[in-house]
């Protein structure tokens, strides 16, 4: 029965290969529903008092332009990295035809974004009054979608000198993100607030004109906006038709170098250019030099070379700290799973420098800029930006496990990186946890002073804030097994099993996951904005989270030990 439901006659009759497609489709629909929900939440943030403000236009146009930005990346991926493009390029197919194929594929994939654009139109036209005129909403959605396609086509257009249209949109989107965080902060700070500071709409008005989505937001003829929309669509159409010959000309002239190396793919943690060039030089410098002395032993040479590459001496103090927590075998694993130099110390120093700079600017503004900027306006920036900079540069996020679970660069059988070696899931957990502890300690060394200075500048309670920071760091570190589980689960496939065992296992994971919700959602999501001591920070809550995360990993490990898992990269 179990097999019948999971992998049995029912699915076999309808062709098993269709299941992954159905699964992907369901995931996509789920994602779109989630994004639609976020958009409506955003629209809820722009409730009635703001409805007619430039602020709302800017926010919703930003949503469309973020999607546009992603689609620009997709088009580039289809051109540069899509495996089918690579194959076509090596076959006697003209660049023009490849361009047409890329354009067609891009168009088909983009169709799926029509519902998202309709949700944006609904958010603009009728939310939250639920008074939308549906034909108008649908038409606006279609118009926004067309504008999005046109913008993708026009993104590389030069506006003069070296400025491209995409550069302007990027600038506007940076402001969009910052203002979104600002509004969120104000909502948190002042529940029931009815209006934004006057400078916000004053800024949003001109800024929104940089985003073509704003021009099309009305859905009907609306003066200069409609003229600009038509202009955008017209130019976009022109570039759309010119796409195959223009791309074809580039592809026909391209050399093999145009097609990127397989080795450069699947790298989640990209090292700095300097580090990369440094490591490449070090390898090429020493290449062909052996044997320097014929009398020298090969084994000595191997040992020496391996020791030089493995030595943490030439690395920064964060790397050395992490290495100090690892045994020899784990160090070897880290060397395999990370880049030559992961650059943790370099990033830490950069974060420290930027945080110091930003705090200094904040302090100066507070001291001398009080005439033209209020403390209330300054507050979120003092909070968000320096801590954000510290987070981006020093916070331990992935710790190399993605590298372990992605495809082996050359193996044709889709094996994850570690599957062919005597390395267990528990090994990866041990390495990753220890690196996280070391990097978290380094991060706290930076975040704690930054937070203290911020609290002193803003008059908040220092002990409470530091306690929150410590609780947050503890929660994140203790959740590491959950992340490892997620990564390993992504690179494996459960083999046929009894339905009861599978359901029971997933039920347990669900229960354990629910028990982590207080810390995961309340703590991790909202802790940056809440300084007061919260229930989620209690030791009991943190302990439950740590145990739950470890138990979820334990369940996965138990399944692996029970031989129920295939190690196959997705």
């Amino acid at each position: 029965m179990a097999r019948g439901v999971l992998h049995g006659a029912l699915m076999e009759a309808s062709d098993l290969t269709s299941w992954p497609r159905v699964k992907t489709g369901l995931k996509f629909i789920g994602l779109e529903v989630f994004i639609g929900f976020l958009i409506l939440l955003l629209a809820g943030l722009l409730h009635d008092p703001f409805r007619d403000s430039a602020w709302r236009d800017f926010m919703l146009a930003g949503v469309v332009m973020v999607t546009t930005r992603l689609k620009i990346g997709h088009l580039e991926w289809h051109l540069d990295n899509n495996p089918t493009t690579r194959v076509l390029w090596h076959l006697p197919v003209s660049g023009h035809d490849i361009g047409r194929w890329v354009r067609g594929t891009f168009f088909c994939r983009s169709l799926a974004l029509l519902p998202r654009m309709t949700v944006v139109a609904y958010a603009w036209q009728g939310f939250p009054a639920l008074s939308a005129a549906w034909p108008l909403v649908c038409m606006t959605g279609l118009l926004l979608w067309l504008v999005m396609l046109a913008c993708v086509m026009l993104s590389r257009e030069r506006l003069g000198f070296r400025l491209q249209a995409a550069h302007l949109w990027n600038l506007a989107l940076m402001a969009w993100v910052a203002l979104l965080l600002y509004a969120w902060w104000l909502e948190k700070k002042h529940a029931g607030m009815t209006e934004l500071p006057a400078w916000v709409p004053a800024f949003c008005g001109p800024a929104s004109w940089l985003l073509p989505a704003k021009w099309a937001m009305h859905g009907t003829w609306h003066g200069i906006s409609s003229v600009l929309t038509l202009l955008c669509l017209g130019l976009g159409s022109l570039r759309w038709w010119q796409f195959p010959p223009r791309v074809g000309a580039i592809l026909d002239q391209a050399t093999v170098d145009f097609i990127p190396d397989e080795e450069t793919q699947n790298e989640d943690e990209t090292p700095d250019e300097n580090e990369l060039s440094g490591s490449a030089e070090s390898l090429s410098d020493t290449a062909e030099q052996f044997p320097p002395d014929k009398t020298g032993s090969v084994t000595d040479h191997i040992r020496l070379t391996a020791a030089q590459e493995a030595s943490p001496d030439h690395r920064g103090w964060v790397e050395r700290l992490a290495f100090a927590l690892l045994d020899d075998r784990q160090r070897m694993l880290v060397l395999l799973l990370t880049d030559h130099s992961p650059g943790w110390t370099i990033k830490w120093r950069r974060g420290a420098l930027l945080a110091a700079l930003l705090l200094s600017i904040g302090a100066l503004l507070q001291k001398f800029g009080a005439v033209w900027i209020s403390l209330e306006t300054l507050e979120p920036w003092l909070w968000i930006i320096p801590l954000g900079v510290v987070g981006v540069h020093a916070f331990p996020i992935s710790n190399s496990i993605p590298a372990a679970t992605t495809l082996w660069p050359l193996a044709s059988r889709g094996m994850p990186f570690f599957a062919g070696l005597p390395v267990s899931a528990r090994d990866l957990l041990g390495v990753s946890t220890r690196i996280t502890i070391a990097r978290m300690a380094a991060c706290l060394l930076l975040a704690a002073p930054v937070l203290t200075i911020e609290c002193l500048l803003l008059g908040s309670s220092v002990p409470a804030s530091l306690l929150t920071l410590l609780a947050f760091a503890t929660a994140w570190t203790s959740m590491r097994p959950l992340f490892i589980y997620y990564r390993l689960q992504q690179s494996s496939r459960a083999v046929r099993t009894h339905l009861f065992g599978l359901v029971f296992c997933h039920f347990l994971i669900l229960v354990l996951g629910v028990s982590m919700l207080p810390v995961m959602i309340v703590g991790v999501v909202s802790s940056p904005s809440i300084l007061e001591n919260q229930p989620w920070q209690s030791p009991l809550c943190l302990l439950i989270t740590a145990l739950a995360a470890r138990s979820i990993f334990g369940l996965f490990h138990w399944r692996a030990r029970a031989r129920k898992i295939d190690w196959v990269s997705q």
Partner: protein
Amino acid sequence: MHIELNDLSKRFGSTVALDQMNLNVPPSSIIAVLGENGAGKSTLLSLLAGVLAPDDGLIRYDGQVFSREKLELRKRLLFTPDVPLMFLDRSIATNIATFASLYGTSIDDHDLMLTRLLDETGIAPLLNRGAGSLSRGQLWKAFMACVTVVNPELWLVDEPFASGMDVIGMGVFRRLARRLADEGGTIIYTTQMVDLAAGFSDHVCVLRQGRIALWETSARVSEIIAKAPEGQEQVLRGLC
């Protein structure tokens, strides 16, 4: 290493890759696994290496039930897919040291053989070069240096005769495999070259539609090939 397969089965959706396979491989032997395309040869190696898990059945190494998380057993075997698993951004020297470290062996114990192998294959001058810069044949030769230091009790090799190695490399492969077998190890490799399999193995195992169609000594297979002009095809189809 003594290997036992009991009712080993593996399916991928509706495709049966291995169907209740039973096999008893004696230690100190070289086994050539033959079969048509899609017969389940590579799946068998992946199951033996623990990269894939069986749907049914058991694998026993020296009497112990095998699973991938049993690291002590895993350290006794080495898996070489059709393209060897090496760390492409590291030098060959580091790769050799890494394999020794991961498998808990010492390079010093294999100093002489390693030196000879590196000289013979022409890899010695390339020790400091990144593995990613090597050709496929060179990569195989470099990997054999890793095999030398690991000294596995079970070496699972996928398509060594289609590795891109020159005749020198193939000679080194044969000698290395024979030495490991003479020391009590077991070598299981896949190939589609019937004559090569008969010439370099103790037993030939032919897979057909996920089942063992033929299990014979290499001497007997050589006889079959010599008897009839279509002998090779008959062996590959397990029709003897």
